[in-house]
């Protein structure tokens, strides 16, 4: 096949490219706009296939809460169309482009689905994966396959659509996705606590999640990270910031924050952000503003919330880390010094004890080359991963080595 860069405009063109690659056994690097190209292991490929020319919203039914879009559609275009109808992607996807050195909003919807990097609202509304209703993709045999559809409930056959979410382009090349969308909640209010220890913060966040007030954001930022926030009061306080968000219609949001304030009195909420300030704060969290402007290694760790503070405490005894606790402690964004392994050994040692897994989001190429970017798989998961890969991409054409070396 022709080496170099391919940007097909249709599924059929893509299928033809994959067939040619299969014939010549040419491995392909799969991407959208490439904003996450330096994330994950480097791919050794003979050609690049981008979905950036497969773009456009093909169906949007606001009254059915469904949108279908080609995978190369910029996320900004999706969000603008939704905003016109007061709707949004409720999983509040993390815009990872700025911490990778790209401009905000440069990613595609295909990239979002392929990486499944959900934002703060995941605790209430679910992950990116939970909002995917259907997918059309091309598998490693060059076949155009579809799974799911555009309706909310569908259990017809195996759920290949959601299985492809978070597969980093290694199983199939997604062409079009159907997404569940939800109405925007007009009022956003955030309770802010200053200077809580990690233990007290996680305790307060977990407590908030146990109330009936539909908390939609719970984050705790170490003081050096809080100092990078847009809100001058929060950035200038010099202390760790812990924040709890409620979104609803105005009267309800006010009622719920007042009840939360009572429930969390012992932790001393010191500030209540109104909608504008609340939205600015969570936009910072969503774009990982607290990790922009540095090049230090950045990890994304999923663990059990109640164990998070101990995990971080143990880690901090070995390495100087700055941590943002999202998902009431269930998701840790950890910035480490530029050590040779970006503290991979220490982080994974803690996870072996406490449970969970870690992904190296940002690091120099030299570090990424020597370090497992994704959580190393234990048997029998490595065998099962290989079987799933084989079922979709028997020749190993797509993104070889992206997730795991040798795959």
């Amino acid at each position: 096949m022709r080496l170099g860069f391919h940007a097909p405009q249709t599924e059929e063109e893509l299928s033809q490219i994959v067939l040619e690659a299969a014939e010549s056994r040419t491995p392909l690097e799969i991407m959208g706009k490439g904003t996450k190209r330096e994330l994950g292991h480097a791919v050794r490929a003979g050609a690049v296939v981008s979905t950036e020319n497969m773009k456009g919203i093909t169906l949007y039914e606001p009254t059915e809460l469904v949108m279908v879009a080609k995978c190369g559609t910029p996320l900004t275009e999706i969000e603008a169309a939704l905003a016109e109808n007061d709707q949004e992607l409720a999983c509040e996807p993390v815009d990872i482009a700025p911490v990778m050195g790209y401009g905000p909003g440069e990613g595609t919807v295909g990239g979002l689905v392929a990486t499944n990097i959900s934002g703060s609202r995941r605790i209430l509304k679910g992950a990116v994966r939970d909002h995917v209703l259907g997918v059309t993709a091309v598998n490693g045999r060059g076949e155009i396959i579809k799974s799911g559809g555009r309706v909310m409930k569908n259990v017809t056959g195996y759920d290949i659509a959601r299985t492809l979410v978070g597969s980093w382009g290694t199983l199939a090349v997604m062409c079009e996705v159907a997404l569940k969308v939800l109405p925007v909640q007009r009022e956003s209010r955030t309770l802010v606590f200053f200077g809580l220890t990690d233990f007290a913060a996680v305790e307060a966040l977990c407590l908030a999640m146990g109330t009936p007030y539909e908390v939609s954001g719970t984050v705790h930022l170490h003081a050096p990270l809080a100092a990078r926030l847009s809100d001058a009061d929060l950035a200038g306080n010099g202390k760790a910031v812990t924040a709890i968000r409620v979104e609803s219609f105005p009267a309800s949001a006010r009622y719920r924050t007042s009840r939360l304030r009572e429930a969390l009195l012992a932790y001393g909420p010191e500030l209540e952000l109104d909608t504008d300030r609340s939205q600015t704060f969570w936009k910072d969290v969503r774009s990982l503003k607290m990790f922009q402007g540095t090049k230090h290694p950045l990890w994304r760790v999923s663990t059990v919330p109640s164990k998070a503070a101990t995990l971080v405490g143990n880690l901090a005894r070995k390495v100087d880390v700055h941590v943002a606790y999202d998902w009431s402690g269930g998701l840790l964004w950890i910035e480490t010094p530029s050590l040779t392994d970006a503290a991979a050994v220490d982080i994974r040692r803690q996870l072996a004890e406490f449970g969970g897994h870690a992904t190296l989001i940002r690091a120099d190429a030299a570090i990424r080359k020597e370090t497992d970017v994704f959580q190393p798989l234990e048997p029998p998961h490595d065998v099962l991963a290989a079987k799933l890969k084989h079922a979709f991409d028997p020749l190993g054409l797509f993104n070889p080595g992206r997730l795991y070396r040798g795959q």
Partner: protein
Amino acid sequence: MSTVTLPDPDRAVMARRNEVVKQLKKLAPKAVVIADLEGRRTFESDALAAYRRLPLAVVLPANTEEVSAILRFCYENHVKVVPRGAGTSLCGGATPLEDSIVLCLSRMNQVLEIDAANRVARVEAGITNIAITQAAAAKGFFYAPDPSSQVACTVGGNIATNSGGAHCLKYGVTVNNLLGVRMVMVDGEIVDFGGTYLDAPNYDFLPLITGSEGQLGVVTEASVRLIAAPEGARPVLIGFDSANAAASCVAAIIASGIVPVAIEFMDRPAIHVCEHFVPAGYPLDAEAALIVEVEGSEDEIEYLLEKIEDIAQDYNPISMRRSQSDEESALIWKGRKAAFGAIGQISDYMCMDGVIPLSALPEALTGVSLICRKYRFDVANIFHAGDGNLHPLILYDANDPGQLERVELCGAEILKLCVELGGCLTGEHGVGIEKRELMYEQFTDEDIDQQVRIKEELDPAWLLNPGKVFPILGRGALKQSMDLTRLDAAPDGLPPEDTLVDEVEFDVEYIEGEERL
């Protein structure tokens, strides 16, 4: 006669039945092994009772290790395994085969942990759906997916079929509420997928396992999300003089930015049957009714219900009743939740499970009426309107020879219509044996091949729940069968299709004189 063919059994395996039973007893000493005829008969069908096969034996293991030992033995001896929870599958998802054992998880029904801080419950797969909420309620939490059979069905079965329910409009279905499973693979290997945290490492096997109808492994434990119980919840019951008005009202509610916790739709026949069964005050003069439920504090509920009532006013409701108390709310839901049982009191019925885009609802309801009329059956429609999941209940007489085949063909035509309208064959019941041959209506060869390749990677010998999900007769088999009935040619004095009325009047005399429970 029926339209569903089950695979021919392997006579050699059946001849080894005594040896298989002996080995099972030895390998799983704490398990209950049922080998006698009477005992096996209890398990010869699930809730799709038209299909029965006597299994080789039934095994009810006590723990994951026993499941592992049983599967390893079956793998090595080429014995097929049909996993089963409570046997409530309406699509024949747990129909046994004569050369299979039934592996029933109902004895593994313990809550292993309720972790309030992390909002997770760890349970054994044989626990009933409702028992999770009962165990979590004291700490202020509940488990969201609420299939109508939640009192009986098991969480393992819910995972096998990705079950939903009335309240899934807001909270999602099983896959959205599942954090991890412990699963025994076909060769007996015990594997944990996911965990008690929110994201799984590796490829995400959870959505693949969820809804795979027990074909990729046997789930023995699950970690599920717990959600803080709302302060309160209350429905409003709205009657309309047409299905179109009700459907338009649903769209308008959603467009307004409100996502109620449930929107249930009942047509005129369903309203009458349910009201007869549970006098809940349903609007008997309405052509369609909606139950719209919202949650929150008292003030929040009042605000939202008022807003919904305002929206409904634009669609000329003929009645509107806001629940005033917990008792009244319970009564309104009791009627809806008892619908399947209520109709069962007056007739045999086939409960279909198709999904359509909501915008196609009027067309779908007209189509369902016409199709049922063509096949000479009455039909009642009840469904989850928020997500377009239709449940036409086709009434028939199981004792009348020939009616089973006719009702199956009628149901198949309805499901085909759902696909043609942009929907799918099943929203929550699964494919099982019931809709197996219809898979080509929704999928291409390549789509199905891709699914089959996954099955073959994980279970190369097709020992786990074979004969389900995928067509075994090949492309077009059922379509051919439907053509042969030549119903379009109006047999047996049926009126020609073009003379049929748009709306079918439900034969209310059906229910007169029946004893109300």
